[in-house]
Structures are given as C-alpha cells and as structure tokens.
C-alpha cells in the first residue's frame, strides 16, 4: 500500500496518473456542474420567504465549503513536505493556494450579493464574515510569501509554516455562528439529525458541493501538472513529452 505513496513522489508518475484521472474527472466535473446548476436554478421551486434570491446558495455554499477544505489541503500538503520532505506535497501546496483564494473570494462576493436583498446590506462585520475575510488574507499572505523567496525550497517550507499557523482560523469560521449571535444563519445541513433544508433543495445543493470538490481537484491537478513541467523542465521525461507534443503538431 505504501508503494502507492512512494510512487506519488515521482514527478513523471504523478504527471501520468494525474493525466489519466483528469481524462474522466474533467468531463464528469463539467457535467455535474451543469446538472447541478440547472437543477438548482431552473428545476427547484422558490423558497417560502426568500423567493428566488435564495438560489445563489447553490454557488455560495459550495464555494465556502471547498475554500475551507482547500485550506486544509494546502496546510496538510505543506506539513507533509516539512516532515517527510516530499517535494510533490510542496507542489500540491503551491497549487492549492490560488484556487482556495479564488473560492474564498467567490464565497464572499456571492454572500454580499445574497445579503443585499435579504438582510438589507452588502456587508456586515459579524463573526463568520469577518473570519472568512481573514481566511482570504491568509491565503493571499501564503501566495505573497512564496513569491518573496528566491530559494523555492525554503519558500515551500516557510509557506507550510504559515499555513499551519493559519489553521486555527478554520474551526472559528465554522463554529462562529454557533458561539455568537450573528447575522449569518447557522448551518442548515446537519450531519446528525434532520437537516433544516427541504430535500428538494438539499439534493441539488449536495450535488453542487460534490461538483465543487471535483472542480477543486481538477484545478489542483492542472496546476500541479503545470508546476511539475516548470520544475522538471530540464529532465528527460519532460523533453520527451515536449518532442512528442511538437511532433503531434
């Protein structure tokens, strides 16, 4: 079993396997996104009090959920690099950062768009929204730190330390609506007991969340492949790929 992980440490093997995964994952993701959006936006009825403006939930919630999960991916990949010195984990961490930042930004913007007609304001400084903003700044800080180092190996390790430090923010974001009375509502999807969202709306939402996870994975793999090609540009296997791509036209 461990040989699988050892093989993941080899750039050409990782490149090959990510290619074969993407060959089916990318179309599956696009299909899931299309079906989910159509289902949620067109084929589900309006909500009792919010009418049609609640439909932005199908983008807002998946983006926020995957932004949080993406931070864990980035931090854990960084930790793997720090502890086991696995360079592919470093590649994963660097590739995850911009995707997570973009998703956090999407969550904040869609939240603002949702808030204006429902709450009555574009922005409010309550616990969850403020901590999501802090998460965006943490992501951007990781990106900035990586660029500032000339020695990229040290850059990866420094960013790993920074991501791990920022990990304290994630449980705060998640639990802030329970600990403090805030404007943002508590979770509707409950892991234990009955969810407080009607199943006609819950199912497309779950599909969209799964689709966003798949989208994150696709973007991560695509970024990783690009990073691998850049890092290993002088090796034989990349040269062979380049020649093969050239001859294909």
């Amino acid at each position, binding site marked *: 079993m461990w040989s699988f992980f050892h093989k993941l440490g080899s750039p050409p093997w990782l490149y090959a396997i990510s290619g074969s995964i993407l060959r089916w994952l990318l179309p599956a993701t696009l299909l899931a996104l299309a079906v989910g959006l159509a289902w949620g936006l067109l084929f589900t009825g309006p909500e009792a009090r919010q009418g049609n403006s609640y439909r932005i939930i199908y983008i807002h919630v998946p983006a926020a959920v995957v932004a949080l999960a993406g931070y864990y991916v980035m931090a854990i990949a960084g930790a793997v690099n720090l502890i086991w010195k696995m360079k592919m984990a470093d590649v994963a961490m660097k590739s995850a950062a911009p995707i997570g930042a973009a998703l956090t930004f999407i969550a904040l913007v869609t939240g603002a768009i949702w808030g204006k007609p429902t709450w009555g304001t574009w922005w409010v400084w309550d616990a969850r929204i*403020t901590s999501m903003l802090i998460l965006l700044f943490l992501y951007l800080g990781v990106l900035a730190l990586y660029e500032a180092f000339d020695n990229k*190996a040290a850059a990866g390790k420094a960013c790993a*330390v920074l991501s791990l430090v920022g990990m304290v923010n994630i449980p705060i974001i998640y639990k802030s609506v329970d600990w403090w009375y805030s404007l943002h509502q508590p979770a509707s999807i409950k892991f234990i007991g009955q969810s407080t969202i009607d199943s006609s709306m819950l199912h497309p939402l779950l599909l969209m969340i799964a689709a966003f996870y798949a989208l994150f994975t696709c973007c991560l793999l695509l970024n990783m492949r690009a990073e691998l090609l850049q890092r290993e540009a002088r090796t034989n296997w990349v040269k062979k790929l380049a020649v093969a791509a050239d001859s294909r036209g």
Partner: protein
Amino acid sequence: MTRPGALAFSARVLRRQLVLAVRRPVEIGNPLLFFAMVVALFPLGLGPAPAQLSLFAPGILWIIALLSNLLTSDAVFRGDFEDGALEQLLLAPQPLFLSVLAYICAHWLVTGLLLALVSPVFAVMLHMAPAGIAALVLSLLLGTAVLSLVGGIGAALTVGLRRGGMLISLLILPLYMPVLIFGSAAVQAALSGLAAGPYLAILGAMLCLGMALAPLAIAAALRISVDA
C-alpha cells in the same frame, strides 16, 4: 565550564536582548513617539470634538498600538541574523523553544509593556472616559504580548529576505485582527458599564495558545530562513 541548563540559558538570552535594547534607547523611544504622534493625528484630522473622539478612542488606541507593534516586529531577529548570532543559537544544544520565548519576551518588555503603561495618558488626550482605562491597560498588556508572539512568527519567516518590508505586515495583519477585535471590545464593554472580563479572558486564551504554539512556528521558521 559546564553547559547551562535550558532555563538558565534562556534567561541569559533574555538579559542579552534587554541589555542590547537598553543600549539603544532611541529604538525604545521611537515606537512610543510614533504612538504619541499618531494619537495627535486623529484630533487634527477628525476635528477636536470631544464626544466623537471619545466614542472612537478605544479603537483608535488599539489600532495605533497594533501599528507600532507591526513596525518593531521586523527587527526582532534581523540584527542577530545579519551578524551570525542567530545561526549560533540554532546550533546550540539548548532547546530553541525557550530561547525564542526569551527573544519575544524581551521584545514585549520594551514595546508592548511600555505602550500599555503609557496608554492612559493618550486615552485622556482622546477624551476617553476613566471607566475604560483599566480595561485599556489590561487589554493592551495581554494583547500586545499576543501581538509580539505573532509578530515573531512573521519576523522569523521574513528575516532572510532582502525585500522584507511590506511583506511582514501582509503576513501578520490577518492574525492581528482577532486581537484587535477583542481588545477594543473589552474597552468598549468597560465604557458601556458591562463586564470586560470575558473579552480579557479571550485575550488571555489567545496569549496561552500563542505561548504554547508560536515558539514552535518561530523556531521552524528560523531554521528555514537560516538554511535558505
């Protein structure tokens, strides 16, 4: 000569840092002077109306304390990095965790502690009601300690970089924000006649967590920066 124990060693590091700081009193005075001048900026810019100033006083004082801390954080490890003393520290057999705590403690003693003790003067300059002063001093004492710890992380990550400057601010400001929220909330609560205790407890919790975990991050970051 026997090897000093861990606590004795870090006590010596602390004493060294304090002696170095005291030898350059200008560097201790500068942040306080910055604090005073920025406090003066607010009545100058917003108009001297006492009622309005006193409304914003907790936030203003806390933000300026935060900015002064930001300015001094960069230099915590830089001097020793440049002359190689830091590398020697990393090679020492004594645990880096305690030595790092000594550096941060020294930093706090010459920045945050002094700021907290001097803050009542500026609170009065901004027409803040006396009810809030105790909470202000306590929240600054606890909060600036957290800021020093977090600032140390940023300093350790960027000490090896030539163009550090703005970067350290970008890294540590997101982590400074919760401290600011609860620090100024403690003072607001005291001014409203409510208990500031819970807010100070949260600052205390941040301090405990910071003391437990920040030295680990700082030690790791120092090793990375020195090896780079």
